[in-house]
């Protein structure tokens, strides 16, 4: 038996992040006194990984390594860059919040880096096992972070809930993978695709497997009926962690869906499109309706996130119509554009919640935004932009994300789905408008000045303005999503 040394080169970024995780661990053990060290190291890790991804590994070609378990392609590179970016911003927004609550222990940043590593493995996986390992790495780090505030009953409860349900979902996913393996005899996506293409697989077992895989994906995306954890975890977790959960993992889950469904099981597209339609419709309806009743803004954003993920799925399910794959590429890139836009908006929205929080005070009720226009017209305007963008009102990026997805849905001939989606958007507009209403039309209850470090203020402003600027010129981001997919799908 001869042992071939794999090509490590395409995985340079992952290796770098893994090594840096160990460095942070050492720093956590031996340099506890230096409070800023872990944070700084985490940011250096993310920036370094971004450099490696851009200048070392990005080639525009599809490269397989580690016996076909790892794939380096533009889709992975692009999503990884977005993940570094959103984790870095989330850590920056959350730093003050964590410090106020004495939660800024080095382990937090260690977990954040491990979570990032897990997501990187997910988006570059070309094999069921690497996908699963990446997923678990991300999830375990998140479970711990949700329960990080160990003296808070709500935080530990949320961590427990997340863990139990997450473990169940992982189990389902694993079960589904084993069935797919049983039917096709392969675990890497290329071989699965080939086996299906030559129709050598047992369809019944395969479909069973698909259902379980879908359950796993749905759980990670947080769509109905696997959404139960979302509001509780969002609310219970420290807001800085909520911010982390609500952003980058959505990109990783999107990558997981695309890798599994499009790269692996594309021959079953008719079946999984039908399942996605079920998930998407339920999520859009339930997410929007339930969000109306929330007075806690974290819960409200959780339900709104459920509906957004449902909307994103609309793009994925509009790829193939009656065997015609003509629109598939446009539909998937619209879904990706939607996911990216959602992450940008979500970062800013939770960033605003963090901005208003301070030591001993959680700005987690919608009412805490009352009269923000009097306290700080600038940040009220930022929040307004974000809310209108989430509601899908132009000129903001949220509108163009919705437009792109709706366009694919209409192109696929599902006009009724588009009508349903827009009607639910009206319901969605109501609760976003309510936030604008309390900020602009009500008198402030809380008159404390907003104290936040300059870097958070500047970055949050840039974040808010980018939602508006990308709305005026969404073309570049649309192109990037399209190119990344196109170069990887070939």
């Amino acid at each position, binding site marked *: 038996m001869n042992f071939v040394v794999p090509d490590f080169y395409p995985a340079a970024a992952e290796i770098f992040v893994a090594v840096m995780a160990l460095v942070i661990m050492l720093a956590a053990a031996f340099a506890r006194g230096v409070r800023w060290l872990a944070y700084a190291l985490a940011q250096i890790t993310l920036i370094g990984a971004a450099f490696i991804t851009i200048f070392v590994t990005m080639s525009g070609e599809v490269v397989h390594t580690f016996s076909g378990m790892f794939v380096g392609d533009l889709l992975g590179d692009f999503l990884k860059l977005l993940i570094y970016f959103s984790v870095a911003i989330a850590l920056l927004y959350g730093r003050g919040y964590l410090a106020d609550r004495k939660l800024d222990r080095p382990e937090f940043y260690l977990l954040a880096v491990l979570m990032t590593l897990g997501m990187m493995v997910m988006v570059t996986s070309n094999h069921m096992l690497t996908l699963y390992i990446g997923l678990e790495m991300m999830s375990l780090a998140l479970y711990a972070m949700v329960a990080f505030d160990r003296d808070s009953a709500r935080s530990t409860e949320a961590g427990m809930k997340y863990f139990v349900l997450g473990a169940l979902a992982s189990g389902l996913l694993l079960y589904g993978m084993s069935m797919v393996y049983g039917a096709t005899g392969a675990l890497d996506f290329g071989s699965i695709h080939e086996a299906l293409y030559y129709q050598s697989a047992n369809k019944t077992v395969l479909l069973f497997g698909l259902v379980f895989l879908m359950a796993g994906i749905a759980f990670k995306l947080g769509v109905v009926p696997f959404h139960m954890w979302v509001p509780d975890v969002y609310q219970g977790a420290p807001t800085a962690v909520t911010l982390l959960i609500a952003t980058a993992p959505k990109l990783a889950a999107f990558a997981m869906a695309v890798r599994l469904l499009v790269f692996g099981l594309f021959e079953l597209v008719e079946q999984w499109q039908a399942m996605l339609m079920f998930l998407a419709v339920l999520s859009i309806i339930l997410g929007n309706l339930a969000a109306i009743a929330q007075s806690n803004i974290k819960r409200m954003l959780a339900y709104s996130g459920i509906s957004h993920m449902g909307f994103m799925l609309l793009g994925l399910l509009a790829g193939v119509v009656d065997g015609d794959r003509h629109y598939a590429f446009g539909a998937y890139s619209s879904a990706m554009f939607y996911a990216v836009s959602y992450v940008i908006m979500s970062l800013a929205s939770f960033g605003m919640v963090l901005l208003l929080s301070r030591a001993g005070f959680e700005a987690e009720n919608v009412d805490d935004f009352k009269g923000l*226009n009097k306290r700080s*017209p600038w940040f009220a305007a930022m929040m307004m932009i974000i809310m*209108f963008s989430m509601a899908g*009102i*132009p*000129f903001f990026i949220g*509108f*163009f994300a919705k*437009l*792109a997805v*709706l*366009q694919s849905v*209409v*192109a696929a001939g599902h*006009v009724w789905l*588009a*009508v349903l989606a*827009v*009607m639910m*958007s*009206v319901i969605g*507009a*109501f609760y976003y*408008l*309510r936030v*604008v*209403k309390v900020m*602009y*039309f009500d008198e402030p209850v809380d008159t404390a000045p907003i104290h936040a470090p300059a870097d958070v203020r500047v970055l949050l402003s840039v974040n808010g303005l980018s939602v508006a600027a990308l709305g005026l010129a*969404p*073309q570049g981001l*649309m*192109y990037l999503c*399209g190119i990344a997919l196109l170069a990887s799908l070939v």
Partner: protein
Amino acid sequence: MTGMPLLSLAIWIPILGGLLVLATGSDRNAPLARILALLAALAGFLVTIPLYIGFDTSTAAMQFVELSPWIRPFNINYHLGVDGISVLFVLLNAFITFIVVIAGWEVIRDKVAQYMAAFLIMSGLMNGIFSALDGVLFYVFFEASLIPLYLAIGIWGGPNRVYAAIKFFLYTLVGSLLMLVALLYLFMQAGGSFAILDWHQLPIGMTAQTLIFFAFLAAFAVKVPMWPVHTWLPDAHVEAPTGGSVVLAAIALKLGAYGFLRFSLPIVPDAASEYAPLIIALSLIAVVYIGFVALVQTDMKKLVAYSSIAHMGFVTLGFFMFNQLGLEGALVQMISHGFVSGAMFLCIGVLYDRMHSRNIADYGGVVNKMPKFAAFFMLFSMANAGLPGTSGFVGEFMVILGAVDFNFWVAFLAATTLILGAAYTLWMYKRVMFGHVANDHVAELDDINAREFAFLALLALCVLAMGVYPFPFTEVMHASVDELLRHIAVSKL
């Protein structure tokens, strides 16, 4: 004049001006904010004048066209242009914005910069709606214009302003989102083009035409507003600050009617003629029933709001009879209503600023204290009632003539507006202005100052000029209206 991107200037000068005004910040800089706003509004108005002077009345083609790609993956273009139907609205809008800025000069003391900015930005967005020739560009402006108006009603409005603002926003959103689906469908049918002018030539089957027609109807009927989806308007009007009411009545209501002309009629002509009786019926209900509703109002703003609905019923009636007189009459009526309803709300604003009441019962004998104001208010009331010699008469008369041509009974019902309109407007005028001085508050009223005199006189001039010599207005429309009627007559099936 072809060198300058006039339409872009008309859109972006007010918007950028508005952002600049916002930058002045808190109310300490209110005087600066006011002056900047006035300059921006004036500049915005001045750039629209060459649009009228340079307008070629002999052609129905789009003029002052600007075309550059905006979002290539979806073939969305920044495509602007005006024809005889839209050019007047751009002018009207810029003019009304100028008036609104003057009208809010001293009255608004709270968050001055935000107030002025909201109206300037809204003005730019509305110019965008009237000049967009790309479906998505139109939609983007159409939706975005909700935001400043929502804020204007909610921040500076009356006691029930939150309810009114949210109702206004959601009502209009429902309709326009359905329109978005229709736009996307047309995009697919047209082989990936969002150009409205391409859609005009696109053959569409009857079922699809019907669905598209109703999707457009949902968007535009709410905006017009037509009976029975008009209920947001009285609320929004009553709660809005004076400037908000003026912009709503003078410009925002025209957006829906304009949408019918730019989208419904030319894109789905067969469905439009199929369902014309429905629209005519709804319009007549608006004219007659809403006329009676206006009669019993005790709140002046509500009364004028209902009268606006009735007048807009006249406009949709004129559109869907598909004849030259009806269409041109409706367009004249729209412009005239822009002046008259704007002026009516300004007059009520003048009273409200002094008395802080809109109740008719709180007034009486105002003429004794405010003779100059009474003269202006009289003129606008007469115009609202459709007195010959004022702009209100020209449009109504043309539509009624068109209706006689179309069907006698339609004309008969439409003509009741002349009676009803006179009844509710003049009766209100009588109760507010004439009689003895009703109470001590009225006794303390001061007559209008120079600023108020200026904007009322400007509007009075427009109302009279248009009433006596409407030719400069109708001349612009002729070619485009002719072309539109020719276009509708050809089936697209």
